[in-house]
């Protein structure tokens, strides 16, 4: 079972000096936070805001690379969570074949947003992610921790 997720936003995590991509399902019942690096967060942010940078960023380059040979991203799936590391698969079609390529969720999400491809999470990942822990963590955040992406 997989659930379709939407990117709800990006937050700065001051405790880990990292960024969190917040994924939610359509019913807003499940939330999946994914910790990503600064440059990946920047790339996801540009895609979310539909900003075209003057020069192609790494994921724009990735998209051009696929476009050059008509390879299409069909979907991305967050497949597993292991010791705080998330795993993802990028599903593509190229010529008449389908491919599933191993990737980090950050790259998969950045590419999916640029390809208008849906993002899914496997049930086991959502189950493993303790929402209680997350809510507690979110409660501890101060308002000034939000909206710091441009720093």
């Amino acid at each position: 079972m997989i659930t379709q997720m939407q990117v709800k936003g990006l937050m700065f995590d001051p405790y880990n000096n990292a960024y969190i991509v917040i994924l939610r399902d359509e019913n807003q019942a499940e939330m999946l936070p994914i910790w990503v690096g600064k440059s990946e967060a920047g790339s996801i942010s540009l895609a979310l805001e539909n900003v075209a940078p003057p020069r192609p960023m790494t994921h724009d380059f990735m998209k051009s690379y696929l476009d050059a040979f008509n390879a299409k991203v069909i979907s991305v799936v967050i497949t597993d969570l292991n010791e705080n590391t998330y795993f993802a698969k990028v599903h593509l079609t190229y010529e008449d074949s389908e491919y599933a390529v191993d990737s980090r969720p950050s790259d998969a999400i950045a590419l999916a947003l640029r390809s208008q491809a849906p993002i899914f999470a496997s049930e086991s990942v959502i189950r493993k992610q303790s929402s209680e822990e997350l809510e507690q963590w979110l409660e501890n955040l101060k308002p000034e921790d939000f909206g710091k992406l441009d720093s």
Partner: protein
Amino acid sequence: MGEQTSHSAEPLIELIVNRVVEDSNTDTRIIVLTRNNGEAETFMVWVGSAEGESIRRALDTAVTPRPMSHDLIKSFGEHFGIKTERIVLTDVKSSTYYATVYLENKGVARTIDARPSDAIALALRCHAPIYVTQDVWRRRSGQNLDAWLTKLETKNIGTQEV
């Protein structure tokens, strides 16, 4: 695009990545390239820290537990049979370098526009040659920067990131 390697008739100059230098003042990395003819002249390109680290990892042939962005691009190529033939630093405008990546698959050639950082990060992973046009080589910055670079590297000793 056919077999044409450059817009001008002048032959391209092949470069090799010599090293990646950290500029901690600006959180950027300097990619130092040299000609493969043994001459000491250098060609420097300023890149972001993430791209610079990606190039450094490729130089060190370091393997990360999870594929980084440029490893993923290489992985797409391996799945589809796309070959990265070469990259060319084609232009410089307002201190910004432009690169073209030459790809090939089953006789179909394609070129894509890229920043030098992405182009170099991919070229190193695919063992593709890196070229610069004569024009861009002549207009390179860094001819008077060697002393400054040496100073920066000396300063960096002992202050490498943990």
